[in-house]
């Protein structure tokens, strides 16, 4: 194995270790969600019905599409500026829609604390977890969007630092953030929708 290939493999390995720690990070939050759902199933189901399923589904579609665009940029023989720019724009659109959702939550008194709208036990805990999980995801997404934006700029200016290996690492991070949202989507937006 050449030195360059060895270096690329080491970097890839390092990123997978980082992603592994992220699994631990989000895993603890998912465990807290599971615990709350077991103890207060009614409260969690009622609270889940108050999240905006339309905007949540739209955001899921945006992230899935952005992942395809990032995969296209990574796997193409030459880095594609437009696919990176589109993925960055979709990331920003996701954050804007998330902000809109938070605004609706504020309007509907769904922010945990005094004056919380839902009287069911556990509903407030659901929204505490909802805000913590979505906000942490949004922070990750903001970082990823910034990285993709920088790579789009580097790709357009044919910067020497933009190597396929670095783009691949950025892609791995973006796909992981996408996977986190894929798991959050049914837990936060879909649970409790069915009329039994």
């Amino acid at each position, binding site marked *: 194995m050449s030195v360059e290939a060895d270096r690329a493999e080491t970097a890839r390995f390092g990123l997978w270790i980082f992603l592994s720690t992220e699994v*631990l990070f989000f895993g603890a939050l998912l465990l807290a969600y599971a615990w709350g759902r077991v103890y207060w199933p009614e409260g969690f189901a009622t609270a889940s019905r108050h999240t905006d399923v339309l905007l949540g589904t739209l955001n899921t*579609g945006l992230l899935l599409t952005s992942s*395809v665009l990032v995969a296209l940029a990574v796997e193409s023989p030459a880095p594609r500026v437009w696919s990176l720019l589109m993925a960055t724009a979709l990331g920003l659109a996701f954050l804007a829609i998330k902000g809109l959702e938070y605004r609706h939550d504020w309007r509907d008194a769904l922010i945990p604390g005094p004056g919380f709208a839902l009287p069911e036990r556990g509903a407030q805990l659901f929204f505490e977890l909802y805000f913590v999980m979505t906000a942490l995801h949004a922070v990750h997404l903001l970082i990823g969007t910034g990285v993709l934006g920088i790579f789009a700029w580097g790709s357009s200016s044919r910067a020497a630092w933009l190597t396929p290996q670095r783009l691949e690492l950025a892609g791995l991070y973006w796909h992981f953030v996408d*996977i986190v949202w894929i798991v959050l989507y*049914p*837990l936060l937006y879909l*649970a409790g929708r069915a*009329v039994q």
Partner: protein
Amino acid sequence: MKLSLHQRLAAVWMGLILLMLTSLGGAYLPLQGWNVALGMGIACLKAGMVLWCFMHFGRTSTPARLALAAGVFTVLVLSALSALEGATRASEPAAMQPPRQLPPLRDAAPLKRSTAARSPATTASSD
């Protein structure tokens, strides 16, 4: 038949969007509480597609696979231990005491009100 890069990615994208819509529709079906299981099953399928088709987990090195497996394994072990602890502990929650606002002293004289407003802690510290 060998698919081009664009064709392959378009097929994966359509699969992911179809699964997303399936989980959305499935959430409204009367499945006697199995909706969450259906939603999580589809989510695992979608996550697997991203992991295999975009992150190429199947082609990554053994140490990298072990790194991710170690993270997942640790989460599962800690979750199982936490669940065991929660399931075997006697649950005797304390009575909920919502925060209360004392009624205002409407008829008190101004001097008396300012004296009453001083908390015991403040009085003690000033002494």
